[in-house]
């Protein structure tokens, strides 16, 4: 469940005004939720923890640009999604490079990162695999909208797009998920 914006906006306002302790309070309140959003976007536990830290660090560095009155949680989720995209890009790049080095290196690159994923061995494994195969924007829409129960407005703010775009991305993602699940053995 996404955090109430009123719970974070006050400390975030103070942090933007220059209070370092207030940002520590923001981080303490949001770290679990950001970590879950990173997991929902297909990162391993270790990568998700690192992405959470990186997102908080970027938020701290950019706290001067925080717009008072905006949704702090959506703002932080947007920063995290940027970090997650970069993480996926790095992973894809390493896969390509490993494939160029030979099949052994490619197998090594395909291995899941240390820390694993919480639902990998459960009955929901096929669903997580299907989510991993979605295009990035559709995966983000599903992760925000369904896996973290964010509203359309919060999802749009986090993804940096219009609400209509979120709706169409969610609709397309659900359709694509169903197709992928049918393809899976």
């Amino acid at each position, binding site marked *: 469940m996404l955090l109430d914006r009123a719970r974070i906006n006050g400390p975030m306002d103070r942090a933007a005004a220059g209070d370092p302790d207030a940002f520590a309070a923001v981080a303490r309140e949001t770290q679990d939720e*950001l970590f879950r959003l990173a*997991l929902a976007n297909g990162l391993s536990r270790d990568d998700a*923890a690192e992405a959470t830290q990186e997102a908080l660090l970027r938020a701290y560095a950019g706290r001067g640009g925080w717009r008072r009155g905006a949704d702090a949680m959506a703002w932080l989720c947007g920063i995290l999604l940027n970090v997650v995209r970069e993480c996926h890009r790095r992973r894809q790049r390493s896969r390509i490079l490993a494939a160029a080095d030979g099949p052994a290196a490619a197998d090594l690159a395909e291995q899941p990162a240390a820390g694993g994923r919480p639902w990998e061995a459960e009955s*929901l494994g096929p669903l997580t695999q299907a989510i991993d195969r979605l295009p990035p924007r559709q995966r983000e829409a599903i992760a925000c909208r369904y896996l973290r129960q964010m509203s359309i407005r919060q999802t749009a703010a986090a993804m940096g797009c219009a609400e209509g775009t979120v709706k169409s991305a969610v*609709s397309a993602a*659900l359709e694509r998920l169903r197709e992928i699940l049918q393809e899976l053995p």
Partner: protein
Amino acid sequence: MIARNREQGDDGLDGLVKDLEALAHRLDAERYPGRAWPLPAPRPARLPAGTRAAWLAAAAVAAGVCAVLVFHARAPQPAGDQVSGVRYQVSGEASVGRGSASVRRGSPDPAEGQVPAELAAGQAPVPQVVVVEDLDSYSFIDLTAGPPVVSFAMKDSCSPTSVVAVLR
């Protein structure tokens, strides 16, 4: 839920949505391992604003009390408690210069060369002797009772030799 049904349409995605919700519940149990942000550095304890104001007020009161005490300590003491020098100028055959003496103030200072009326009337309760120093002698003027009695002593002697005059 209504919004989601609109997004889903009527093509039977309920099972998929339920699986997604189950996945969401599983995610809710996840927590960040450890601490993503360092704790704020401990800062020296600051007194609350109200306490600071109270301390400032108390310090101001104490400073005022100290100032009053110092003022009183440096102010002249009441008459009768302090010994101070009173200078008299004596002229005559027996004295050749200015003399100084210490007296106990039991009454207001007499004017130069005069004897206070109460002393002259013998009302002063304590002995009052004026000592006048010359080059080689001392003159003692006893103002205790009755008319002043003047005695004389050489500096090399410890006792007055004689009463030389009685002022009237």
